[in-house]
């Protein structure tokens, strides 16, 4: 148990140490010498977060969570609803 307590911070520090990022072999062999990220790579990196946000939004909507509308939009919305009720 003591060894685990000692090892855990070391593992965390090792994981958080900055490392040198190398481009993939395709980018390295690019005729233009472009070794930076492209939009395809950035898009793939962001995709899990986008998917998680969509799943979270669907779950939140299913559990009746609604975003609070700005006051002006809410006023117009309520007035429209009132007109619908009376006509």
């Amino acid at each position, binding site marked *: 148990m003591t060894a685990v307590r000692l090892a855990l911070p070391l593992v965390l520090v090792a994981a958080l140490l900055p490392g040198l990022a190398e481009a993939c072999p*395709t980018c390295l*062999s690019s005729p233009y010498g472009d070794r930076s990220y492209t939009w395809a790579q950035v898009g*793939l990196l962001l995709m899990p977060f986008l998917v998680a946000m969509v799943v979270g939004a669907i*779950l939140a909507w*299913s559990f009746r969570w609604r975003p609070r509308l700005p006051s002006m939009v809410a006023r117009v919305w309520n007035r429209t609803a009132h007109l619908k009720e009376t006509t």
Partner: protein
Amino acid sequence: MSPLVVEAPPRPRRANGHVPPPLPPTGGDDDPDFTPRRPRLDNVRLAMLFFLSAEVMFFAGLVSAFLVLRNAAPVWPPPFQPRLPVAVTGFNTAVLLASSVAVAAAMRARRGGDGAALTRRLGLAATLGAVFLVIQGYEWVRLVEFGLTVGSGAYGATFYTLIGTHAAHVLGALVWLTVTLALAARGRFLDGRTGPLRACAIYWHFVVLLWPVLYVAVYLA
């Protein structure tokens, strides 16, 4: 004195299929307006949500690999390679989108309790899906005849991998839709137990809506 043997009460066997939860025990104050509360998000939608999330990641990986390889190439399409049939595939895209409309119409018919219209519209959607696959197969035969194969470098490999994976998904969805159609023709789904139908419809819409993204990325861009 013999030892006392206590046997566990028999556990009811779980039946296959949808088993509605038992109603709460009624006391002396029955509410005539009481209706059992529906779940906020039913199991079918939740399962399809997570399944389709995995599918989105899978296709995002394939599209990303395609775009990385494409950006790395000095000329795309490579010289002496056949061009992709944009017009025919555009027509095919319309066919696939029409099948999605037919599935949506079938779901409307189910809500209205019209079993005949449900079967008819599911049949139309399955036919349109089959037409899509036939046209795509014809395209592939022509492209192979023109010399575009999986071994034709990154151009052929990424094309057949990406488009072939989608075609395999359409084929799987078509089999699922055909089974659902057979069940609908036997009168299922009109009694309110619509889980398999809804799951099939969600998957079909996903496969259809994915195609325009691939069409733009692979054929048009």
